[in-house]
Structure formats: C-alpha cells, structure tokens
C-alpha cells in the first residue's frame, strides 16, 4: 500500500540565478577599492558642478583669456570653500559661533546611527540572497511600535527603554518577516513585496497618527512626546544630540559581523545567498532561511526606527524615517554588504548630512549638491559591472569560465 506524502512544500530554488540577480550580486560584492573610487569620482564631479554653478567662477571666466589664472583660482576657491565647509561641518569647525556648533562630528554620529542599523538590515538580507528594499517601511513600523509603548506607557527607567527597543525591533521584524514569509512560501519576489510594504507602512502610520496615536493636544497628525524614561540617554549631555543608540548600533555591527562570519546561522545564510540549490542539497532549509533572515533584517531596520524616535525625534510623525530606508541601500552598497563596510559607509553618509547644512550656510552652495554626490556614488558603484555587462568586457572572476 502506498501513501501520498507531501514533504517540503518549498518552491524549489531557482536553478540559475537570473541575469538581474547576478548583476545586483556583482554590484554588491565588488571590492573596497571600487567603493573608494566611486566616492572620489563622485566628489570630483560634485566639485565641477559646484564650480560651474558658482557666479564668481562664471564672472572670472568672462575674462578667461586675459587672465586664466583668475578663473582657475576662482574654481579652486569655490570648490575648496564648499568641501572645506562640508568637512568642517561634519567634523570640527573652529569658526562656528557656538562651541557646540564647532563639534559637527557628533552630528555626524547622530545622523549615522539609524543609517548603521538600516544599512546592516540591507546588508544581512543581501548576504542571504535577498534584496531588502523595504527598510523604509520596517523603520516606520519599528518607530510606530516603539512609539506606541514609548508614549503610551509609563515604566521605570531602563525597563521602559528596553521595552521600547524590543517593541521597535518587533515592529520591524514583523514587516520584514512578511516579505520573507511570502518569498519562502509562495516565491513572491522580495523586491516587489517590500516596495509594496513601504507604501502600506506609510499609509498605516498616517492612519494611526490621525486616530489611535494622535496627540490630542495637536491638530496635526503627530503623536504625543515620548516618555522621558523611554528615551535613549544622551551620551554627551544636553548640548549634543548623540545618544546611546550609537552604542547599540556599534554592538549591532559587531553582532552582525559575528553572525555572518562566525555563526552556523550566518554560514547557512551565506550558502543560501550564494547557491540555494547546493544549500538545499546540504540539508539547509532555504525557506526557513529566507524567513528568519528577513525577521532579523527587519528587526535591525526597526532599531533604526527606535534610534529615530527614542534618540532624535522624540515623537512620531509620518516623516519619521526621512530617507533613511533608501539611503540604507546605498550605504549597504557602498559598504559592499560587509558589516564594517556598512558602518563606515553610514559614517560617511552621516557626515554628508551633518556637513551639507554647513556647506549650504557657510559656502552658499545648494544642499542639493550632497544629494547629487550621493546619487553619483550609487551610479559609480553600479557602473563597472553595468558597463561590463553592456560592453561584454571579460570579468576577472572565474565564474562562468569552464572548469
């Protein structure tokens, strides 16, 4: 007698990764040199843009043939002033009026904190072969959950913050987990699902801010202030915004580095990401891997939401995630989907944010230049493989070469 038995309900993993996945994989796993070059080239082009839009440069170029040096020196001073201001704003600016204002480095660290968390989220998922575009939605959910217990409850110090952190992680994990679950059970592509979940998250938070989570004393869709016990302690006193979330972020980097490089779970994730068929043959549960990695990834992004609401913003509004969830993708890209690479890339982007304002104010350069430079970085990181695939230039890797 034979019985019909259903084993693994998993959709079998693709035999060969698609062209697109291959390209993304190549972009994400290139070497650090390309990252550094991308930043340098982006800054150079940004510099050119700064120069050509500077009225002093165009004025000097009017008599270029009479006095070429004047043009060149105008260009030089235009660029050096702008980037000088950017650098000083992001690190140390002796000319600032207040001494707090002089130490831009702490603003850099403050901005970097949520980027570290969310960059790690993208990095981790990517190593398991998933492109998590949904950090934005996961941050929003994390902030919403963290906020709900942060201003909705009053608990003793420390305990309250811990509850807030856990709630935020949970919110993000749920949002990431949905994408992981759908991928594992139905094969739904995580890129599409996470993009959709981003839209749902923003609509959801808006709805809640108009109803359950609304501050009764305000006419705007904004929540009440977080309870004082629910906030990250400030690391350097009230003069600086840098908060204990940074320490948690650094711990997260160490944790993710350990997870990926030293743990059996990370071994599984990397195997699934690199060759799901071989992973399955070796007894790994690919679908379970997809679900758990998206839970952890979502939790990390949720912590970025916690850093926002319990660190800097202190109340929930629909702008809580800013563009962090999207910058996170660039940060992970620039960090070559390595935990410490992501950390340094997040610092760089934090510096752009902190220094951008100073550049706009002190050198009178549009803050949009920062956005342009950031976009150029993405372009140049993506360009070598893009160019290679367009022009069919040989790859240095052995992949595809016969054995």
């Amino acid at each position: 007698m034979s019985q019909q038995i259903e084993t693994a309900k998993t959709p079998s993993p693709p035999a060969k990764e698609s062209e697109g996945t291959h390209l993304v994989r190549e972009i994400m796993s290139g070497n650090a040199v390309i990252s550094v070059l991308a930043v340098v080239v982006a800054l150079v082009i940004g510099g050119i843009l700064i120069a050509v839009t500077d009225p002093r440069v165009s004025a000097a170029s009017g008599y270029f043939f009479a006095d070429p040096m004047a043009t060149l020196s105008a260009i030089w001073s235009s660029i050096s002033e702008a980037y000088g201001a950017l650098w000083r704003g992001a690190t140390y600016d002796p000319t600032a009026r207040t001494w707090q204002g002089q130490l831009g480095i702490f603003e850099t660290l403050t901005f970097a904190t949520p980027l570290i968390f969310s960059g790690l989220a993208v990095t981790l998922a990517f190593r398991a072969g998933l492109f998590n575009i949904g950090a934005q939605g996961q941050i929003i959910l994390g902030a919403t959950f963290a906020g709900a217990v942060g201003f909705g409850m009053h608990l003793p110090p420390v305990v309250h913050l811990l509850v807030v952190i856990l709630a935020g992680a949970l919110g993000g994990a749920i949002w990431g987990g949905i994408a992981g679950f759908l991928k594992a059970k139905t094969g739904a592509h995580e890129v599409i699902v996470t993009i959709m979940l981003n839209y749902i998250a923003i609509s959801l938070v808006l709805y809640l801010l108009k109803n359950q989570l609304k501050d009764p004393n305000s006419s705007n869709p904004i929540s009440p202030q977080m309870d004082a016990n629910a906030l990250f302690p400030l690391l350097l006193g009230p003069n600086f915004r840098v908060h204990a979330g940074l320490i948690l972020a650094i711990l997260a980097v160490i944790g993710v580095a350990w997870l990926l490089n030293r743990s059996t779970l990370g071994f599984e994730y990397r195997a699934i990401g690199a060759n799901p068929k071989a992973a399955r043959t070796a007894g790994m549960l690919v679908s379970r891997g997809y679900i758990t990695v998206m839970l952890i990834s979502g939790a990390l992004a949720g912590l970025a939401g916690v850093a926002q609401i319990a660190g800097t913003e202190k109340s929930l509004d629909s702008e809580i995630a800013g563009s962090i969830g999207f910058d996170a993708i660039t940060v992970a890209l620039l960090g070559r989907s390595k935990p410490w690479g992501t950390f340094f890339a997040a610092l760089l982007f934090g510096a752009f944010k902190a220094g951008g304002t100073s550049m706009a104010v002190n050198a009178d350069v549009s803050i949009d230049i920062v956005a342009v430079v950031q976009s150029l970085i993405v372009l140049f990181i993506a360009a070598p493989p893009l160019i290679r695939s367009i022009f069919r230039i040989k790859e240095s890797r052995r992949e595809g070469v016969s054995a």
Partner: protein
Amino acid sequence: MKLELKGITKSFGALVANDHIDLVVESGEIHSLLGENGAGKSTLMNVLYGLYEPTFGEILIDDQPVKFSGPADAMAAGIGMVHQHFMLVPVFTVAENVALGGESTTFGGILNLNDTRAKVREVSARFGFNVDPDALVEDLPVGVQQRVEIIKALVREAKILILDEPTAVLTPQETDELMEIMRQLKANGTSIVFISHKLREVKAISDTITVIRRGKVVGSAEPGTSTTELASLMVGRAVNLTLDKAAATPGDLTFKVSNLTVMSDAGQRLLDDISFSVADGEILAVAGVQGNGQTELTEAVLGLHKHISGSIMLDGNELVGRSVRQVLDAGVGFVPEDRQDDGLVGEFSIAENLVLDLYTKEPYSRWGSMNRAVIGKNAEEKVAEFDVRTQSAQDAADTLSGGNQQKVVLARELSRPLKLFIASQPTRGVDVGSIEFLHKRIVAERDAGTPVIIVSTELDEILELGDRIAVLFAGKLMGIVPGKSSRELLGLMMAGLPANEAQAQLDGNAATMEGERS
C-alpha cells in the same frame, strides 16, 4: 588556419597554472590535451580564448602574433570555444542564443533574427546537426544544447574550435554523434582542440596528443599509444586502470526501497513503482541512459522530491517524508550529479565546502558558533588525503579545476561514518589517476559494511564498481543483474527490455548462431 602557442605562462598569485607552454595546432587537425585534474588545460584554453591574459608568452595565428583582450577578439580571429558549462540562455530559442553577442542587426540596431535563423539552418544542414532554430534551449537535451554551442562558434566562422571536456555530460550515444561531428568539421578544415579524461575517446579521435602535467608540457603521444602508457605519461606513475576488487560479502539488507513512485510537479511519472534493496557491504550500480529516472531516484532518497509515494527504509527507519537534514543525519552520504549546481558553493572556501553539510555538528561548531581552527584542520587533512590540487584550503572552491571540485565533494561525503553512500556520476571530469583512488575509496566504504549505490552513465564505471547492476528505463526498473553481466545485456535493458526478455533475446541469438553453425 595554423595556431601556435609560444611560451604561454599564466600564474594565479604564486601558482603557475601554465608554465611556458608551447603548442602547435595544425590546420584541420584534432589535437587532444591530456592531463591530470588541475594540470592547467582549461586555463590554457581560457588564455587562448581571451578570457585570461597570459602572464607571458604569445599566440600566433598563421605565424602572425595576435593579442586578445577578450573572447570577442578571439572569436574575430576565428577561435570558438564550447565550455563545459554551457553559456546559453535557457529561455531563449536556439536562434536567439546564436544571435546573442554577435547580434546581426539591420540599420538602426533592430535585431535581425531571420538572418541568424537562416545561418543556423544552413550550418545545421551542412553538418547534419538536426537543430531547429526556433526550439527553446531549455527543452533540448544536453547533447543538442552542446551542438547549439558548436553552431554558435561555426556561425561566427570559427576555424579553431576548443572543446573542453565536451563528453563529460554526454551519453555514449551522444558522444558518438559528437565524434562524427568532429570528424566532419575536420574534413572541412576546422582545427579542434579536444580535452577529455576518457582515454578511449582521445585515442579514437586525435591526430596528435599533448600531455600536460603540473602546468608543463611533458610530451606528446601518437593516438596509437596504449591506454596504460597514456595514463602513466599523464600522471607520472603507473596507473592501474582496472580495479582490484574482492568479491562482496553482503550482510543484512538494510536499505530497502519499495513501490517508490515519484511524480513531477506537472504530474508526470518520473519513477514508476520501483522496488529493490541493497545489502550492507554491497555496491548496487544503477545504469541507464541519462534522464531515465536515475537522478530522481537519488534525489528521492535525499528527500528533495515533493510528490513521492512508497517507502524508503534505512536501517529500519522510514526516510520518505523526512527533511534533507534528517536524511543526512540518518547517515546518508550523498554526491549529487551536478557538483557546481548542487554540490558546492563556489564562492565559499574549500574548507567551508568540506563542512557544507556537517557545519552543525561538533567539533565543527558549538553553540551555533563555527570553529574555524577545526574546520581549517579538517580541510588540510582532506585536501592531502584526496589529493585536491590547490594552493590553499582557504581558496574559493570555484578556483579549483573541475576534477578537483569533484574530489572536494567526495571527500566531504566519504569522511564521516555512513549507513548508506549514494553517489551520482562520482568520477565525472576526474582524471584516470584520481578515478583509481576514488574507486578504491568507494570500495573501501563498501568493505567497511556500508550499502553503496552508484549511479553512472559510464558503462565502464558500472561494470567496474557494481556488485549488482540495476537498469532504469523511462522511470521503470528493468531488472537487477549480476555485476559481471555482459555489455550486450545491459545495452538491451537500457533500451527498455526487462532483464529476462533481454537475456532470452541474447540466448535466442546465441542459439540461432549455434544453429547456423551446425
């Protein structure tokens, strides 16, 4: 067209994969390269095809030095290459695949497929390839896909064709067809560089044989040279081409498959009511033309199939319905048919690959944390024991030569106590010296009392290893015959005759011959 390689040297870091290699391929010649796994054959061909830049040395075509900065240059110079892993887009048609990379476009960049289609038809007709330009590549059998690769090269007017282990994935029938194609190409003036580990093929088809050992040319041989001589020239020592194997001493029947039926997702019957058992200390060799259910049989044991009925018992435990991990933990050693797709993670190190299905076990990990020192030490031992040719066990597995990748998979699966060893194509792409070693290891596993199942499309390997031989045809078991059965009998069974009918037919033939003689 005459091709000459002069002093080609290619190093990867400290490793010299090609060391001042000189090679002349005359016009219209079939030139075979023989060499151990990791000798540097593929590397040399990749240099010739413009995929690698040589560290030193030059390439001359018709006595003119040429420089290739990529395969496009090599193709333009009349060199075509068929890689062991085909570079075809499965969802494209034959014509689209052929057009890819050498797009023939009309003004304005519109793809001109009709042109390509006509060319495919023309080439296909000229050489009797029998390939439909509008067929989807994914629907084609491996042998035909390979022909598409050859057509790709011929449409680009290749005068020199590189075939790197083309027969490793072919059935004997397909191999014969390929040989025929090669002869026709040769008659047409095309030169062919042919790489294979099957000495019989090399002897049958070559005009010249060059032997490479550890990156250096160590000599050339006439096709008339005996197989043993070729083997020892290659490996540098005498190789025993026939396996000394004591008769099996079968113990209990611990592995039993009963009424196993496997259906595809589309509801097709892949295995149809199969029942057999394997005893401790016995090798069951499973023969059959590729695609008759052998792959499904091994995958069903491992728990990779969804629609499965019947029973698979190992040591009194039911395996059907268990997860892959549980099956492996029950003591099954599994070598998949396709090492690159299923057996290895290419970007992982050799050391990591050697614990790919053992990483959860102590001492390789504890409390969820991998023990790198132990994993590294394990790798050193396995690399030495199985003679994996590599610079370091920390190198990525995809830097290994094909045969060495295979050794890594076998080393992993044979390196723990087993209750069942099941291997598909265990020596695919492996050189004769290593085959000798691997076969010995498999027999040693048997002699240690493990039931062993070997699936192979190589009749030689089946006859060499099998204590009993099972033949599959169209998902059905044609019967199980003794290990010393004749090739004719196996041939008939592989063509779909049940064992008793096949035997009867052979007896009948013998009887008629007797009758005629008297």
